């Protein structure tokens, strides 16, 4: 087990996680600095989503250490991790993440509302981020009434709305065509950079990974940091 590189915002070492008899992670490592975009690549089934889930505190690893801003994630309980996810992290998934009954602006405001912000104020902040993502016109619409690319941009706005320090994006362009995929990636990385948020970007597309500063490859549950190798 190697120590996490100094100055990293989020770092994990020796992560192991098994689902039943299959090892999803087998000693994976990871680190990211503030404002950095790191792509996690690898073939399907390699464990990249599991790595993201562990890093984000969605699932606890079987063993290993995850340190975020000096705090050990593995020793937190579910409530503490949930709070961390609400306040410090943001999430973008491939699809199916917007609540279909809520309007777009309500969807974006949702994480703020979860932290106890008043409805009016939350929706004002939400509109600001929707402007950044160029979807401010969609505020009153429901997710069923907008296109997939617009939906992803709304989701990105939602991920950014709490001012998170780390954004976890799991195949954010997976369901989009090239043009919309490019747009989402461009807006996501720009917004993250200007907010000095780190982005953990899980993707199997090299073109999407090209928006990152560096990439790590996950293969059979083990990670390779390509920057240190090349």
């Amino acid at each position, binding site marked *: 087990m190697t120590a996490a590189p100094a100055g990293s915002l989020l770092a994990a070492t020796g992560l192991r996680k098994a689902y039943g008899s299959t090892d999803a992670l087998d000693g994976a490592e990871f680190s990211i600095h503030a404002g950095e975009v790191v792509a996690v*690549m690898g073939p399907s089934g390699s464990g990249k989503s599991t790595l993201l889930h562990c890093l984000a505190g969605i699932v606890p690893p079987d063993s290993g250490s995850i340190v975020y801003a000096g705090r050990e994630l593995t020793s937190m309980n579910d409530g503490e991790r949930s709070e961390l996810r609400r306040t410090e992290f943001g999430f973008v998934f491939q699809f199916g993440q917007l609540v279909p009954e809520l309007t777009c602006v309500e969807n974006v405001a949702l994480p703020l509302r979860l932290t106890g912000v008043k409805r009016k104020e939350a929706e004002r902040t939400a509109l600001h981020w929707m402007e950044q993502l160029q979807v401010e016109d969609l505020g009153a619409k429901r997710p069923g009434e907008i296109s997939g690319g617009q939906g992803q941009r709304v989701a990105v706005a939602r991920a950014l709305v709490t001012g998170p320090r780390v954004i976890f994006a799991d195949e954010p362009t997976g369901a989009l065509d090239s043009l919309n995929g490019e747009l989402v990636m461009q807006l996501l990385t720009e917004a993250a950079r200007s907010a000095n948020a780190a982005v953990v970007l899980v993707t199997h597309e*090299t*073109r999407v990974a*090209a928006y*990152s500063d560096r990439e790590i490859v996950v293969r059979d549950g083990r990670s390779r940091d*390509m920057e240190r*190798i*090349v």
Partner: protein
Amino acid sequence: MSIGHTLLGLLEAGPRHGYDLKRAFDEKFGHDRPLAYGQVYSTMSRLLKNGLVEVDGIESGGGPDRKRYAITDAGITDVETWLSQPEKPDPYLHSTLYTKVVLALLTGRRADELLDTQRAEHLRLMRVLTTRKRKGDLADQLVCDHALFHLEADLRWLELTAARLGRLAEEVRR
């Protein structure tokens, strides 16, 4: 890439000096390999000979580099024909990479790692292109995207090849 047709196309916007032509070419298409002066002059004289361009005027002080070229009607037709004709599909065998993967598998090395290394190298270039694309204008974006898609295609082909050959090698070894 046909340099002749490209220069003809640049002339369609209006008459230019040879030097201007080279600059415009480099700016738009020659990011990786700038055009040599000599190549411009030889191409232009061939086009002149074929009647596709004509000399619009020569600046005082003379010299071959002071000629201003304009496209002829025949030249416009030629550009049109070129644009409307599909390029011959290129098998585009990436012979070097192919050779590497096959060699790796044959010598019992992991094709995965070769692939990762190659991807890292590709990504390095792709990042540069992505950054340029983000900062550049529409033309930049188009050109960069073209290169990016090609690089990505290389990698995908490489991944597939490695996966297939890996399985094949396993079967052979079994």
